[in-house]
């Protein structure tokens, strides 16, 4: 799991990822956390070393890349091979449009779930420091969290049965 935390939206991503981590731990999955300062060197080396079968990326992005700390491009088109054999959920703008498509079409990524437009958050002005108490924003994050919590469990069940 990759979690940036350096501006209001990434702070929301950072906090709202916690229920996913808790559920994964409860189900007995090993969760490796990268963040809140996500650099290209660290993320690529951790993925190479640990070879996770599911990647959950939280941060800013574009059609061509997923970004780390302070919008540094960390996983870009030339790095797509890193997704080979993996399922990826990228909670970032636009990544599914270019990065995701290339990863699946050309680099053997098992599945890439993401967004083809901007990721939008709506929040209370008073909740910047306490995202989990934000009842306006809650539906956005609970819906988005359903992707890793349901996909992951289903996929692992299928792997276990095969």
């Amino acid at each position, binding site marked *: 799991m990759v979690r940036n935390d350096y501006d209001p939206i990434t702070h929301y991503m950072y906090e709202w990822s916690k229920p996913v981590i808790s559920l994964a731990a409860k189900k007995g999955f090993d969760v490796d956390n990268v963040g809140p300062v996500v650099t290209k060197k660290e993320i690529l080396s951790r993925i190479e070393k640990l070879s996770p079968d599911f990647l959950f990326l939280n941060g800013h992005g574009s059609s061509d890349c997923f970004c780390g700390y302070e919008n540094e491009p960390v996983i870009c088109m030339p790095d797509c091979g890193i997704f080979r054999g993996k399922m990826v959920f990228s909670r970032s703008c636009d990544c599914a449009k270019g990065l995701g498509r290339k990863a699946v079409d050309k680099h053997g990524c098992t599945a890439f779930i993401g967004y083809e437009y901007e990721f939008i958050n709506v929040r209370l*002005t008073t909740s910047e420091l306490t995202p989990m108490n934000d009842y306006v924003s809650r539906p956005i994050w609970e819906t988005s969290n359903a992707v890793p919590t349901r996909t992951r469990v289903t996929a692992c069940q299928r792997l276990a049965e095969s």
Partner: protein
Amino acid sequence: MYSEDIKELVKLRLMSTPSNILISIGGFGEFTKDQLIDEVEKGSEIGNAAIRMEITFLRKMPSLSKIAAETR
């Protein structure tokens, strides 16, 4: 890029948003409803993103209501 009718519709929808809300649009940052209305009026990249957000939601709403009813 968008017709004046669409812009007016989106501006009206944004005007009805409560004042204690901030809307974050991708990497563009966070905006109050008044800031977004200005951007829509200017036809900027941010304004067009806001229009796309609203129009997509409106178009998807019938199927979202159906899904909500089925999952109740």
